[in-house]
């Protein structure tokens, strides 16, 4: 035990002599979490101060285009810039000056009205409310609204805009149909036959354990995800620390000393786990106290602190196990540092930090199950967003602990084999 504490003391001294390293360990994760949350918060907000400029070419000049224009304006997210020609809009999008252009075709309102009237008349004729001879027979050409997207625009944004416009058009069509029926059926044009308000509405319910109600926001989502990302970055300095021991000859001396490799790694684990916990505390403090001052929602940790620290601790252990293994196998810092950093990004992607796991392809979802970052993220979400207790996070923290044990054991065995020359 004395040797373990002596090893931990030495690691602490080594770390305390590297102020640049400490700054990177503690300040960079905070910069990361603040930056990401600021960016994502504005993306998540339904009403944003920042309006996206979009181009509108209105070749219709009828009631439908008026409705589209007013719907877009009322949405509040867009700054509408009207252009006269489709070619001009196309050029501006191609040049990347704007992300989106909407081109409303000529005669859209007329065509829609004629089509709706035709359908309504056909229907009324079926009920013998209208004579068949009076029905117009000409076919009406369907109309296309052209949407131009900047090639750099992300697929998710394109989908959401397309869905929004589709919904808007459907609403306009429905309103036109109701209006046509109203004109045909009602004796008094002021008489209201059809209620045009939506009959089916949505209510968002977030099921949670316990009575407390918590509305998830960008902070509740981002802090756990990016905290975990930062915790796993401990792999890089830890593996460099191990490689340095080899290059400066101190490992050779330790191998001649009556101390086993597990004790040496144990000392490193104690210190680097403390670093992870301090990182976590700093990020919680940022979420709770700094975010509200920056106009972001405050991080709610009430009643969850103990479980949050348990998850952070076991996530830290999993990251440390990986760092010990990498540092044991790597021969140079040029091997350990880039590999460690890239591997953390891969683990984060697999774990659902960038993109939710449920939207990944089936194969990647399966792979995600073996990412320790996925276990950690699920455990954090259990505590942060689902009010989960220790029983709920037990499977994830068991996996994280198992991962630490396995990676550390592999590092010890590898070291034994490598030195058995």
């Amino acid at each position, binding site marked *: 035990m*004395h040797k373990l504490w002596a*090893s931990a003391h*030495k690691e602490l001294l080594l770390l305390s002599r590297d102020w640049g390293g400490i700054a990177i360990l503690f300040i960079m994760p905070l910069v990361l979490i603040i930056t990401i949350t600021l960016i994502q918060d504005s993306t998540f907000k339904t009403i944003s101060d920042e309006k996206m400029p979009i181009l509108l070419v209105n070749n219709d000049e009828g009631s439908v285009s008026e409705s589209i224009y007013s719907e877009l304006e009322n949405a509040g997210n867009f700054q509408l810039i009207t252009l006269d020609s489709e070619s001009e809009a196309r050029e501006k999008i191609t040049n990347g000056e704007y992300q989106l252009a909407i081109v409303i075709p000529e005669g859209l309102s007329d065509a829609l009205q004629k089509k709706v009237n035709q359908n309504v008349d056909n229907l009324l004729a079926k009920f013998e409310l209208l004579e068949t001879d009076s029905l117009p027979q000409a076919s009406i050409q369907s109309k296309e609204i052209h949407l131009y997207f900047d090639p750099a625009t992300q697929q998710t944004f394109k989908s959401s805009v397309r869905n929004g416009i589709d919904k808007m058009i459907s609403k306009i069509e429905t309103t036109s149909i109701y209006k046509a029926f109203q004109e045909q059926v009602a004796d008094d044009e002021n008489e209201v036959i059809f209620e045009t308000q939506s009959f089916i509405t949505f209510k968002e319910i977030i099921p949670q354990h316990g009575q407390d109600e918590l509305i998830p926001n960008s902070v509740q989502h981002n802090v756990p995800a990016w905290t975990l990302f930062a915790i796993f970055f401990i792999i890089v300095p830890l593996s460099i620390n191990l490689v340095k021991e080899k290059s400066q*000859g101190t490992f*050779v001396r330790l191998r*001649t*000393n*009556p101390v086993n490799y597990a004790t040496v790694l144990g000392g490193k684990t104690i210190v680097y786990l403390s670093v992870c916990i301090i990182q976590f505390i700093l990020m919680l403090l940022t979420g709770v106290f700094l975010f509200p001052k920056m106009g972001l929602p405050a991080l709610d940790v009430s009643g969850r602190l103990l479980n949050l620290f348990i998850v952070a601790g076991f996530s830290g252990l999993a990251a440390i196990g990986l760092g010990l293994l990498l540092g044991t196998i790597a021969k140079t810092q040029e091997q350990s540092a880039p590999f460690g950093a890239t591997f953390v990004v891969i683990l984060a992607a697999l774990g659902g930090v960038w993109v939710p796991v449920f939207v990944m392809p089936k194969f990647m979802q399966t792979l995600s199950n073996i990412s320790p970052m996925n276990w950690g993220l699920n455990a954090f979400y259990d505590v942060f967003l689902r009010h989960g207790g220790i029983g709920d996070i037990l499977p994830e923290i068991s996996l994280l602990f198992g991962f630490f044990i396995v990676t550390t054991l592999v590092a010890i065995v590898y070291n034994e084999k490598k030195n058995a*020359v």
Partner: protein
Amino acid sequence: MIQIQQLSKKYKGSDDFSVHNLDLNIQEKEIFGLLGPNGAGKTTLISLLSSLIKPTSGNFTINGLSFKKNKNQLKQIIGIVPQEYALYPSLTAYENLQYFGSMYGLKGKELKDKIMAGLEKLGLEKFSHKKIITFSGGMKRRINLLASILHNPKVLFLDEPTVGVDVQSKNVIIEYLKELNQLGTTIIYTSHHLNEAEAFCTRVAIIDHGTIITKGKPEELIRTHENAHNLEDVFLQITGKALRDHA
């Protein structure tokens, strides 16, 4: 004290033995010099005896302890001064010594007293709280030595302990090693400084191609080799004048 029987070492991928069927007995309190050209097998032999590497065949015991059965006990009674500085550059001399002393189970006042006594002996007490990175080559060599002897080893292996140091540092190191030897420590040492070895060692062995070519007291070896006036003459007669560069 040290019995070596038919000890051999062949590294993976190598065609030749670095140490080949080597037999040697070293008595207690000897200062034994392992001399030889580059690549002769000196460092490999010290690495074998300090359990850093495993022999391909053969056996050895130190103070009756076998490397196969008593590895940890063996590590407790030996000290190794590696050729490279095996120290943490950003830690002070005291912190380095405190850590490596702790690895031998030393602690508290006992450890502190041993560190301070050693630093005083080697003329470094003023620099105990200076970082190693600020030390000269000679100062690092002395700390490198001290880190290996805090636990009072019965046997001390030194791999070129005076390479690249100034005359004053070399003198302090050699005098200190003599003092340790008088207190009962058996010393096995490698060096390319043959004059130093001639004056310092009670017995030497000249090794080449992994085997001992000759061994004995320095003055005996000089006497028994024709036209030899010193150990360097003996060395060149035995190992030849051809360069031994290898990579």
